[in-house]
């Protein structure tokens, strides 16, 4: 029997505000010493009143609009009660039945086929404090308690680990485009839980849902879901039952492990937050936020293909980060049509990306400006240097921030196109390699490539390859005529 997986995702993303959700404490908790960004409100002292951070509401609505959600005219906050001490109040202020955004979707690209993943809701809540567990007690730092957090809940529309991964990647790209969150999973700014169930293909009923937690990287999400699908499928194939449990991903053992049973349904006793007046979201207000939406990655990719005539795969890579897309467009502008957009795209996707990977840095913080990249590409196009030398020059530009011109001059890298000078190298290469020469004369023309390589090596890559090829032909013809 064939089985299919049903996957839904819950993503929490910290919102990039200066202050916390309900008080004026700084939301920048990462580097702060313990309990230095706390006040009576986020410590849950008696008699205090929370006040909603306007920027967090706007960031959540902006996200909802980017995810094609409806923004209801009325929204409110609720208390979610639970006894865990990561929040000092004994409850979390969240949203229950009237979230800020509902019924949206996001599109993923499955190797050419587009698929819409439904977004059930996006709501606003507060993050919790950090606990450190020790043998004789648990230590609490409340700096993170009260940091604005949005929860994005998908419909159970995904059918494979790949789809879940694509969904998450796309969601992160959108959050970063909007500037509402860093989307950094390793730092915990974006957290994700997956609900995974498996059922016989064609069945209308859902299988038992298992919640998978402790997914701390994009890779973990993909591996954990794939593992969980396999685990559940195997249980069903063996005629066994899947239990409703919470599993955690074990990064080291590469498997999901049992965390806790869900037999006792959570009893959060939600009720409307009496300390916060509800929100009325006028259509004018929503429209004003909608006008702030930037061009989103899908639209940008389509425009890059249409406007610049670049390949779809390259366009997709260029729009993954807004900063990369901006870099590309600045370079295209600087080129003033002298370099084709596809050439520029090739260099960014190939060489710049390689340098970013090797140096684990981001395009926004590199020393090579788009204008400097174009200067380099012009040197190559004009024939001052060849492409191989160009790559070395770019390495140097990346490391020092110097201009391509300066590096070429300093290192004497100018391409050698002078025929007299090159003819010597060509003749030398032929004289030094009698065996390949015989092979060539015997009709094995592919040996030409070998001789070109010899000349390039002898000139440290500076020879103009077109001139070298021409001269080789001439010299080889001389040998032929001698015979």
């Amino acid at each position: 029997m064939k089985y299919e997986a049903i996957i839904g995702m819950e993503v929490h993303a910290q919102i990039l505000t200066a202050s916390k959700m309900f008080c004026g404490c700084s939301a920048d908790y990462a580097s702060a010493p313990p309990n230095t960004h706390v006040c009576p409100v986020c410590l849950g002292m008696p008699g205090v009143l929370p006040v909603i951070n306007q920027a967090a509401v706007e960031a959540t609505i902006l996200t909802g609009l980017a995810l094609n959600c409806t923004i209801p005219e009325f929204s409110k906050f609720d208390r979610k009660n639970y006894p865990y001490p990561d929040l000092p109040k004994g409850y979390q202020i969240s949203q229950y039945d009237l979230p800020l955004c509902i019924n949206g979707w996001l599109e993923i690209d499955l190797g050419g086929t587009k698929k819409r993943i439904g977004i059930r809701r996006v709501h606003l809540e507060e993050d919790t404090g950090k606990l450190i567990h020790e043998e004789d007690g648990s230590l609490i730092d409340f700096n993170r308690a009260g940091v604005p957090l949005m929860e994005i809940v998908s419909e159970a529309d995904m059918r494979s680990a790949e789809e879940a991964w694509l969904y998450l990647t796309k969601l992160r790209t959108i959050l970063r485009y909007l500037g509402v969150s860093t989307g950094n999973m390793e730092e915990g700014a974006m957290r994700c839980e997956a609900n995974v169930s498996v059922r016989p293909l064609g069945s209308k009923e859902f299988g038992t849902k298992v919640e998978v937690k402790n997914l701390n990287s994009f890779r973990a999400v993909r591996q954990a879901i794939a593992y969980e699908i396999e685990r559940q499928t195997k249980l069903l194939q063996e005629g066994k039952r899947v239990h409703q449990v919470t599993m955690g991903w074990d990064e080291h053992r590469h498997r999901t492990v049992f965390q806790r049973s869900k037999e006792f349904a959570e009893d959060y006793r939600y009720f409307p937050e009496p300390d916060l007046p509800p929100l009325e979201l006028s259509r004018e207000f929503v429209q004003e936020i909608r006008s702030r939406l930037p061009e989103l990655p899908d639209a940008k990719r389509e425009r890059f293909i249409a406007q610049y005539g670049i390949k779809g795969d390259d366009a997709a890579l260029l729009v993954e980060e807004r900063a990369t897309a901006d870099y590309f467009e600045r370079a295209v502008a600087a080129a003033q049509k002298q370099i084709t957009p596809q050439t520029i795209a090739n260099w960014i996707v190939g060489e710049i990306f390689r340098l970013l990977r090797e140096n684990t840095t981001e395009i926004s913080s590199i020393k090579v400006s788009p204008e400097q990249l174009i200067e380099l590409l012009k040197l190559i196009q004009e024939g001052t240097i060849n492409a191989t030398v160009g790559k070395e020059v770019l390495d140097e530009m990346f490391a020092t921030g110097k201009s391509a011109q300066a590096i070429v001059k300093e290192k004497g890298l100018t391409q050698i196109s002078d025929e007299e000078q090159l003819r010597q190298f060509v003749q030398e290469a032929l004289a030094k390699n009698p065996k390949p020469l015989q092979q060539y004369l015997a009709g094995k023309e592919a040996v030409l490539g070998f001789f070109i390589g010899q000349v390039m090596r002898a000139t440290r890559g500076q020879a103009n390859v077109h001139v070298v090829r021409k001269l080789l032909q001439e010299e080889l013809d001389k040998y032929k005529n001698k015979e």
Partner: protein
Amino acid sequence: MKLSRDQVLHIAELAKLALSEEEIELFTEQLSEILAYFEKLNRLDTSAIPPTAQVIDMRNVTRPDEVRPSLSPEEALANAPQRKGNFFKVKPILE
């Protein structure tokens, strides 16, 4: 409506309260009486009335996203029954 012993124990568990045998009986009795009192409200037909989220007639009370001074750790931890360094300390929690 009479609450069962199990329901009372469940509520006590949610509130993290340890009850003695006498207290379980006492609260089963008292909670049932309170619940019965509120039962009167169920006589009203509210099917056509939307649930009330707030009784005060206020809307859209927000603040600008500005950082204001926090407490010092000393002030923050002044009432903590237990601390370690500048951390609050609580009884061990099983993950």
